[in-house]
């Protein structure tokens, strides 16, 4: 029996991805999850950082390939690897995991078999400012034994957690101050290489 893996995402990685999705409300966006298996507990995958990728033409390969090479190179030198993929659909009421997301997820699984896909949950995001929910506004998808992507069951809520419990409160704050304007993704970098996809100043 494969032990049930838990995924723990850091506040900054989490907020960066959601802000990115909010910056580009009218298109689909995606991002890469960086991290490692917890050295003290190998049933936990820690996501310590994220890189927002694109907000246009997500299904084209050239930019994706370059992005993956550079991201792996940068984080590899820090002992971190690509551990998953984030996707936000174009339409508010589209809660399906699309084919592009699945394909990219499959590709990442070749290098990190425990990789997961996080899909933005638009309804939860909408309800965010009104509630005290500490669970992430994302849905967790993992591959089953036949390599199909499945939504992590009704207890999926406990398999994807944010490391810092107050993250949603911080996120709500950032949303009111429109912090998403400051997020830089790989698309922005390719259009103007002065823009840094590492977003070093975002949370300072």
């Amino acid at each position, binding site marked *: 029996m494969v032990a049930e893996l838990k995924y723990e995402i850091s506040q900054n990685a989490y907020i960066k991805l959601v802000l990115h999705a909010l910056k580009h409300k009218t298109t689909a966006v995606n991002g890469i999850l960086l991290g490692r298996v917890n050295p003290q507990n190998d049933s936990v995958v820690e996501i310590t950082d994220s890189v927002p990728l694109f907000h246009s*033409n997500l299904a084209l*390969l*050239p930019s994706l390939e*370059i992005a993956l090479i550079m991201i792996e190179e940068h984080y590899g030198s820090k002992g971190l690897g690509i551990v998953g993929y984030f996707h936000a659909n174009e339409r508010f009421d589209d809660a399906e995991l699309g084919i592009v997301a699945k394909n990219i997820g499959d590709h990442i699984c070749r290098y990190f078999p425990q990789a997961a896909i996080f899909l933005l949950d638009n309804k939860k995001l909408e309800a965010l400012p009104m509630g005290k929910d500490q669970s992430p506004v994302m849905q967790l998808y993992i591959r089953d034994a036949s390599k199909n992507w499945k939504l992590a069951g009704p207890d999926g809520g406990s398999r994807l957690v944010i490391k810092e419990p107050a993250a949603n409160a911080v996120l709500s704050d950032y949303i009111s101050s429109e912090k998403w304007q400051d997020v830089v993704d790989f698309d922005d970098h390719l259009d103007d290489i002065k823009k840094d996809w590492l977003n070093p100043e975002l949370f300072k």
Partner: protein
Amino acid sequence: MDCQCLNVAKDCIKALLKKFPESKRVGRLEGMLLEAKGSWAEAEKAYSSLLEDNPLDQVIHKRKVAMAKAQGNISGAIESLNKYLEIFMADHDAWRELAEIYVSLQMYKQAAFCYEELILSQPTAPLYHLAYADVLYTLGGLENLQTSKKYYASTIDLTGGKNTRALLGVCLCTSAIGQVSKGKNKEDKESPELQSLAAKALEKEYRQKADDKLGLLTSALRSLKI
């Protein structure tokens, strides 16, 4: 309407209606307000009646496509957009929209066709050369990769060598072509000049503007040459 201030929009439209009672444009705005509210059936009715009086109104045709897309009926949107383009084949935005929809569904051959139309009608627009090259690279296969490289090259030409995506595209193509033609009889017409020029241009750009990423670029280029 873009800001979801639907009441304000309603008031504005009322005022416009008073001043311009028979206006097509106000009729369109009314349709758009219904769309914004999510009243798809009523919006459909409104647009259809407007189309009866003005069957060649491009904007309304496109609003119907937009509605299909917004409701998640992508195949309907594609069908309507194709029909639209049979009549209004000079509408570049419509070709672009269709291409992007095809890409999102991974229907790359069809997307390539759209970009071919766009390049035919606007051969000096680098955007279309670049998009076409991206789609061809994604399709893969030796012939597509070689053509893709040519279109990245033409993009570089049209943009004075400043387009990062095109420069990277040349390097990616060269690497992929090398991979695909490994073991095949190499008719080496491929001169290494284009790719090394592209690499040099990229390094220069990064050194000037994104110095901290130069190391990443260099190792990326290195890994591509394998």
